[in-house]
């Protein structure tokens, strides 16, 4: 192999790498510019980084891994409902069979709205093979009268009595709608929170907040009364 070929190959590789970095940077800049335009057009508030948000919730994806961070915190109101959405991430380390350490970053987009009264924690996750395996080993799951709902969602609730109170037939119907699927939902304290893996763009935020408000409106009024 001639030295000129090796040099050419090296230049192409370095050029490709630099090109990739520049492309990534420009893509991020464009995403950020689009986000800022969207925020300004809707009159939302913006905080670049607020790590206190990492302590807002106890339920997963919070409280896992290390170096948690919360960035791009956007807040505002939709249909008079206040909301906040932010990019949350944490990292984990794993060691392979040869003893090599590797670090993984786990990004999530978290969106939440406040509730009038605090509720015991209830988590709803779309069913998957791993959760089914967990249940077969004795994991506790809240089952409702709807077999379709039970097949679609795995529900864990701190207080099952309250869990059954929240899961009215209309609430179950809501959780069987297509637009509700594909996300996880958490009722925790005075908040209703939803999250998805990855950082999504903000264009879906107004419809997502409307969806959360619709879910919150189906909580029976007696649970939202002053204790």
């Amino acid at each position: 192999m001639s030295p000129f070929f090796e040099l050419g190959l090296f230049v192409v590789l370095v050029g490709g790498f630099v090109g990739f970095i520049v492309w990534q940077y420009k893509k991020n800049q464009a995403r950020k510019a689009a986000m800022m335009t969207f925020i300004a057009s809707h009159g939302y508030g913006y905080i670049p980084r607020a790590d206190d948000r990492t302590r807002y919730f106890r339920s997963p994806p919070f409280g896992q891994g290390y170096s948690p961070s919360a960035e791009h915190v956007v807040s505002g109101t939709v249909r008079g409902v206040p909301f906040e959405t932010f990019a949350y991430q944490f990292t984990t380390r794993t060691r392979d069979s040869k003893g090599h350490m590797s670090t993984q970053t786990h990004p999530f987009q978290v969106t939440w709205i406040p509730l009038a009264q605090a509720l015991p924690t209830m988590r709803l996750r779309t069913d998957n093979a791993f959760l089914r395996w967990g249940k077969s080993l004795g994991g506790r799951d809240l089952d409702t009268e709807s077999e379709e709902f039970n097949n679609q969602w795995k529900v864990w609730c701190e207080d099952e009595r309250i869990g059954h109170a929240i899961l009215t037939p209309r609430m179950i119907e809501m959780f069987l709608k297509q637009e509700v699927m594909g996300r996880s939902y958490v009722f925790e304290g005075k908040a209703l929170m939803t999250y998805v893996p990855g950082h999504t763009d903000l264009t879906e935020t107004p419809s997502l907040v409307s969806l959360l408000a619709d879910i919150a409106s189906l909580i029976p009024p007696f649970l939202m009364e002053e204790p």
Partner: protein
Amino acid sequence: MELVIFGGIGFVVIVALWAIAQYNALVRLRNLVQEAWRQIDVELQRRHDLIPNLVETVKGYAKHEKATFEEVTKARTMAAAPGSSPAEQAMQENFLTQALGKLFAVAEAYPELKANQNFMQLQQELTNTEDRVAAGRRFYNANVRTINTKIETFPINIVANMFGFTRHEYFETDDVARTAPNVSF
């Protein structure tokens, strides 16, 4: 030979431990079902307590609807009688719900009654109480479903039969939202 004896003893011990665990789980579930039923009873009592006030309030405006008042009072007395099984209680609550539906239909004909603060408040309390009953019913039925499934599932049914665990009745009432007329103020 010793291996067979120790193997046999080990097997018996494992089976005994499993049976104890299943027995304890069934006892825990039975207690949960009973507690859930008591909670429904409390909410039903709250519902029954609201009805005399509601009837009195309607009476103040619609004195001639004697038959409706009597029907509600009779249904309420039957529903409030102690010692009913969940199925009997459900049937009586359904009668009461139907009678209340007629009472609210009467109220529809009296605009002044519909605007009465006390009536509106009583109706709101009744709705809240019925939501509580519905929530209690879902919790109770979920626990009944769990214990009935365990009792009928092999091999737990062996332990259940040995210790006299029996199926529990579901509490199936008509949802008020489906039967009561929509009263708008």
